[in-house]
């Protein structure tokens, strides 16, 4: 049993941390938050140049041929730095789906472009409030309907749509968002540094992928593990921020961090983070080894990452007192991102239900 990343993977993590500390400092995140367009194209280009979008793509398709574990360590750093880029949509979801479920022709066309960051992809599944299953149906290779929110849906070039085929079975379909019959608009959201769009298709041509409901579920499981690393990265940054601030700030003649009421708050935040981190590590190990308990491990990683990021990001605001409620302080950036990451690929009730189903079905 080995529950740690390899030396090389840890080196990649350190390099990613150094790079993002330089290139994705808080002013960059704020600029994205306050801009109309959301994501930071310059940062995206630099990330592409570092090869992060190519990590888990085979060398034969223009990628680096590394594993999901290298992606995990990158994800943690993207989460820590609140990077305003469509990485999770394009890499964990679209790239993986095309790698696993697309035709040979689509693979050889899209994978090199995804690796090179020339094409950005995303996944559209939510048709509005609630968590109901897909209702839109593909007829004669064309799909009509409206999806929201679609993460990074305004910037993505391609998207996977969850929709029903002619027989009413849920499948994945691939659509070119720059093609005919596609309209999209950014919606106001809690984290504008990762914009959410409404995407409307009007008889847009789509291609059926070789993926049914089970394949989609497996795709979401791998994304859940990677997103958990983004969440624990953000969690750690928010915890560090709160500790730093309360050590410096004095009240009643002593550091705020010396009061047990505050220390116990931080201890609880730390515990939640470490449980989430341990679950994410277990999920990564299950993912890398294609373990039979990956579905349960992935749901566990996601549930505890959502819980931990919410707890840590909200209590970090409280630990800052009134300053934590200002626009000027960065506390809200983590709180916003926690909300965003808790939403993509399905919220807590959905994943808790998956978790208990999988747990009760296990031997």
């Amino acid at each position, binding site marked *: 049993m080995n529950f740690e990343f390899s030396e090389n993977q840890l080196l990649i993590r350190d390099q990613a941390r150094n790079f993002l500390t330089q290139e994705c400092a808080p002013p960059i995140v704020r600029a994205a938050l306050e801009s109309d367009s959301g994501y930071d194209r310059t940062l995206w280009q630099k990330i592409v140049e570092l090869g992060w979008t190519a990590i888990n793509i085979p060398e034969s398709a223009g990628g680096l041929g590394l594993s999901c574990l290298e992606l995990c360590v990158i994800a943690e750093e993207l989460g820590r730095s609140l990077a305003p880029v469509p990485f999770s949509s394009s890499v964990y979801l679209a790239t993986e789906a095309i790698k696993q479920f697309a035709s040979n022709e689509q693979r050889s066309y899209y994978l090199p472009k995804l690796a090179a960051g020339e094409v950005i992809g995303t996944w559209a599944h939510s048709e509005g409030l609630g968590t109901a299953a897909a209702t839109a149906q593909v007829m004669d290779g064309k799909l009509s309907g409206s999806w929201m929110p679609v993460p990074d849906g305004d910037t993505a070039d391609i998207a996977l749509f969850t929709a029903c085929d002619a027989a009413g079975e849920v499948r994945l379909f691939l659509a070119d968002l720059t093609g005919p019959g596609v309209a999209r608009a950014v919606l106001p959201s809690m984290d504008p540094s990762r914009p959410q769009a409404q995407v409307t298709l009007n008889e847009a041509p789509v291609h059926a992928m070789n993926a049914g409901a089970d394949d989609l579920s497996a795709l979401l499981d791998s994304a859940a593990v990677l997103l958990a690393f983004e969440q624990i990265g953000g969690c750690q940054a928010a915890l560090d921020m709160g500790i730093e601030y*309360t050590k410096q700030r004095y009240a009643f003649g002593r550091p705020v961090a010396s009061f047990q009421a505050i220390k*116990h708050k931080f*201890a609880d935040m730390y515990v939640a983070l470490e449980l989430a981190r341990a679950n994410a590590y277990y999920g990564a190990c299950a993912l890398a080894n294609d373990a039979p308990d990956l579905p349960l491990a992935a749901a566990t990683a996601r549930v505890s990452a959502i819980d931990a990021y919410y707890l840590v990001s909200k209590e970090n605001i409280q630990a800052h007192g009134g300053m934590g409620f200002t626009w000027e302080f960065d506390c809200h950036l983590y709180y916003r991102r926690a909300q965003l990451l808790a939403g993509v690929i399905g919220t807590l009730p959905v994943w*808790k239900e998956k978790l208990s189903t999988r747990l009760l079905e296990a031997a």
Partner: protein
Amino acid sequence: MDFKDTPELASFRSDVRSWLEANAERRTDKLHMGMEGDAAFQEAKAWYQKKARAGFACLTWPKEYGGAGLTPLHDVVWTQEVEHFKTRDAHFVIGIGNCGPAIMHFAKEEGKRELLPRMASAEDVWCQLFSEPGAGSDVAGLRTRAEREGSDWTLNGQKIWTSGAQYSDYGVVLTRTDPTVSKYRGLTLFMLDMRQPGVEVRPIKQMDGGGHFNEVFFHDAHVPDSYRLGDVGGGWTGALTVLMSERLAISGVQPTGFPQFLDLVKSLELNGQPLASDPIVRDRLASWYSQYAGLQALYKRMLTAVANGGIAGAEASMGKLVGAVMNQEIANYSCQLFGPAGVIQDSAISPERAHFQEQVLFSPGVRLAGGTDEVMRNILAEQVLGLPQEPRADKGMAFQDIPTGPG
């Protein structure tokens, strides 16, 4: 990252498995093995001696002290396998888990060779004597006096919450040897012969009716200087070793109540419906599982660190805090699910032989033993996160000048 045993561990696992199949009874449920009463103690001792003869006791201890000279990972393999069998180890956890490491670290070579093998083979049972009526979380405020008597020592005072003192042959005792210096500097740690006239053990009846703990009184108890662990005045360092070993010893086995809850949800029907189909129960199941699985994975991460030559960090304090709280919450929740009959504590009527009712009444003690929730949070905040200590009213004072409350 992988889940595989090394070839060496795989072969050890297979040895353990076949020995257990031949020498122990398989479990049919996940309920706790009680440790109350003399019969349970005799059974436990017989089991432990059998396992010691087979070479499976104290796996990580050096061979010259009665151990097997193996790694912490072997210990984990043993724990994982033995879980499926009905065995009794609880009486020896404190001696072997807490006292053993301190003796190994601080005792003179002669004492180690004399006492450790007998501890490892369960010939001698040990207890730990730290807490006092006036010194719980602030254990360094203890008042049991050890005074020089020639080259040896005489003990007077009282300890409390001593697990298994009624069965113990020896104890590790923390005493005050100098009240004129600050409280941490005036302490000395000793080994103690419990079978002497100057040591009196009185059982404590717990709020759940059980009698796991004791008060221990010293009336001129005698301790040879060769039984001293570490320097005179250096007892606090030794005590910290014991306390960290304690948390480590229990971190892998800290009951969370989750496996029992999972069994309950899988098996029980209430109001004509399986519990497993109730969405509210499923929601709670998911929350607790995510914590339970987190503790398990945390433990695996700690083992990886230990296997790579690192040391255990705060995992033990987290395991203690999260597990003990979860255990109480799960027990209470389960009894609520049973409806008005949840209050009935009758192993013939109550599900899982009244495990959940028992835990409602026992779990408050688990949250206190080995450090309260608040002590765990202070450890995490101060030692892991580096937050400043609370100002202390007794800072810099000689022990004898520290104010105490009435009584």
